[in-house]
């Protein structure tokens, strides 16, 4: 079957009352963005509370088009549809039978017809359509059986100002269209978790900027390239990302030199959050996003997260907080970041790790030890902020 039209299903957008048009506009915009790199040309339309995509070129690649649409947040389902004009029943019935025959060569199945009539001026109502179309299909293919509760195939016939015939709903990623829910700053490392965290927050309609802490010569150009690659991989879903690369070496060495070794990671995390928040505010972000997962490592215990969080005033989103590692890996494999994440380059979190880092840091003690840095930390902090190198990824 050579489909020329796709009907796009979305869930939560429908709930948004008067804001609905904002969400639908964003959805159309994101669909257009995703289709830009696909072979062929397309027209995305909003009609009668539906978003449809018409193929306007002679050729296009069905699989590529579906894969692109499956990266658009807000879409819950993609239905390849056959569109017929609002023809009289006799003709419609022929079309439906023809559709069935082409799409399902194997007739050893159960089916039902599900008709909807948005335009009440059609000659039959939906109950009659169900009954008559079911009858006509059965007559054409007697080996079929009807099952109204759990059919193998449900053929939907929607009567609007045209008639849509479809039976397949290919899953979309769900969520909400990008750009409908503000912007956040993602702390992106080279690991498995943070790209997944970025994906999950973007899925709620949030535009993502990212910050990476680079520590040359302790971390290599390749480690940085890996982060750029990861940002590029998630940008497939999140849209363009502005990646901020911050030179963190001097702060890290200062902490290493002057603070107790077992508190190194936690103090380092506090400075990272502080810098990320400054960058977030300077770049119109309303929140921070991290890949932290409760209890995964010493710096992600409930106590450590509390101590880290204390430096922030913006909300910090931790979408993976309740996830097991395997759950995170599963998503990472699904969105295609896993293989890049596991490339073995050191990132700045693994350079100077203590053998036994604190798992229950005490905020007052940490703050007291941070006093050791007071001599030049402001200067180092300023330099780190100034080192911001922005890499635009799209």
């Amino acid at each position, binding site marked *: 079957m050579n489909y020329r039209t796709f009907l796009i299903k979305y869930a939560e957008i429908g709930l948004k009352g008067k804001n609905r048009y904002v969400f639908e506009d964003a959805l159309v915009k994101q669909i257009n963005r995703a289709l830009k790199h696909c072979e062929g040309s397309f027209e995305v339309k909003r009609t009668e509370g539906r978003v449809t995509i018409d193929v306007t070129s002679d050729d296009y690649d069905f699989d590529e088009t579906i894969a692109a649409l499956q990266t658009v947040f807000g879409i819950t389902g993609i239905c390849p549809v056959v569109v017929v004009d609002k023809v009289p029943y006799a003709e419609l019935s022929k079309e439906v039978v023809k559709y069935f025959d082409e799409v399902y060569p194997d007739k050893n199945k159960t089916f039902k017809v599900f008709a909807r009539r948005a335009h009440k001026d059609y000659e039959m109502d939906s109950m009659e359509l169900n009954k008559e179309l079911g009858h006509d299909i059965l007559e054409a293919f007697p080996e079929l059986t009807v099952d109204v509760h759990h059919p193998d195939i449900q053929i939907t016939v929607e009567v609007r100002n045209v008639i849509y015939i479809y039976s397949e709903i290919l899953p979309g990623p769900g969520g909400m269209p990008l750009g409908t829910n503000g912007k956040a700053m993602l702390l992106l490392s080279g690991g498995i978790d943070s790209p997944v965290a970025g994906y999950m927050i973007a899925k709620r309609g949030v535009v993502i900027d990212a910050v990476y802490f680079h520590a*040359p*010569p302790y971390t*290599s150009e390749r480690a940085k390239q890996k982060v750029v690659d990861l940002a590029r991989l998630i940008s497939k879903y999140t849209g363009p990302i502005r990646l901020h690369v911050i030179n963190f070496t001097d702060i890290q060495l200062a902490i*290493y*030199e002057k603070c107790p070794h077992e508190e190194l990671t936690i103090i380092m995390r506090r400075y990272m959050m502080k810098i990320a928040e400054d960058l977030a505010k300077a770049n119109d972000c309303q929140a921070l996003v991290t890949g932290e997962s409760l209890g995964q490592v010493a710096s992600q215990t409930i106590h450590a997260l509390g101590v880290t969080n204390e430096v922030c005033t913006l909300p910090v989103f931790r979408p993976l907080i309740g996830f097991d590692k395997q759950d995170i890996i599963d998503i990472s494999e699904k969105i295609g970041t896993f293989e890049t994440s596991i490339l*073995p*380059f050191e990132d700045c979190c*693994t350079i*100077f790790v203590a053998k036994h880092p604190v798992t229950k840091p005490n905020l007052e003690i940490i703050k007291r030890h941070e006093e050791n840095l007071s001599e030049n930390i402001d200067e180092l902090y300023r330099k780190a902020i100034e080192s911001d190198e922005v890499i635009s990824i799209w």
Partner: protein
Amino acid sequence: MEIYLDNSATTRAFPEVAEKVAKVMTEDYGNPSSMHMKGVDAEKYIKEAKSIFAGILKVNEKEIFFTSGGTESDNLAIIGSALANQRAGKHIITSSIEHPAVLESMKYLESLGFEVTYLGTNKEGVVEPDELKKALRDDTILVSIMHTNNEIGSLQRISDIGVIIKDHNPNTLFHVDAVQGFGKAKILPKKMNIDMLSISSHKIHGPKGVGVLYIADKTKIHNISFGGGQQGNMRSGTENVPGIAGMALAAKMIYAKLDEECENLYSLKERFIEEATKIPDVTVNGPVGREGAPHIVSLSFRGVRAEVLLHALEDKGIYVSSGSACATNHPEISKTLKAIDLDKDLLDSTIRFSFSVFTTGEEIDETVKALNDIVPMLRKYARR
């Protein structure tokens, strides 16, 4: 400023070579197998290259075969000759410090039922000929030993080994991986009892993706690639004419001034070692003087992580290689450094500096100066 001291990884091509490659690509681009003039013109480059290599190695032109590089030469020599001689026996001897192109070929042969003996080395990274003698058996069909070790520059006693092999059994084949040695030493297969010799172009200022395998006439060997039957069916596939022409020119240029260049490299090496080892706790791996290769220096910096030192040098425009590729969570300890029994603490603190004809005394001095700046700084922040 750029100081490139990673010439054992690859070299900068001679400008003359680049010109030649471009000329062949854009003007004499014919397929040497074509019957017309364009083909004949292209074939001339192949013939000329064969004559150049035959001249340098003092062998016959028909014993020169062109491949895609050192790896393919090693694969073809080892797998091709093992398969062709398996009726005579299935035992092979090599060393534990060979390049992966050799070791992985051996692994493959083991999976086919061959038995491989891996010889260790002495503290200098040299295979003891006596050890080889002990390992030789009646069913040994092939011995593969490298000419120059790529990590620490130890030179193997190829001539002695050749004699031992042929004394034991003239039919046992001797393959030498000379990827690091060619262009730094006179290598004469006929005198050294070498049956097969691997050469790579990009280690001698030629283009990448091309190499030579010398195969002595009458050597029993099977082709391992299949196709149009080029190069006497030993290596099918349209010859990489630009690459071959460029490589031959590079070889010619290198061997025109071999003694002079080696002399120069040795004096750079000596100067570097003398100055660099003045830094406390810096030690040399492998042979220090002229018993080693002229262009490779392996240094261990106690208390410094190789990867970090490498990047710190990179920051100053100095490019080197870490002696042991040591990656997070995947410590791949260098077989060579293990074979010479290097102190465990130094395995991850070892850097290889490798020179070329482009390397200057000033660059050596700059590098020593950089090491003097960086090493104490890095030691201050060593992992506690």
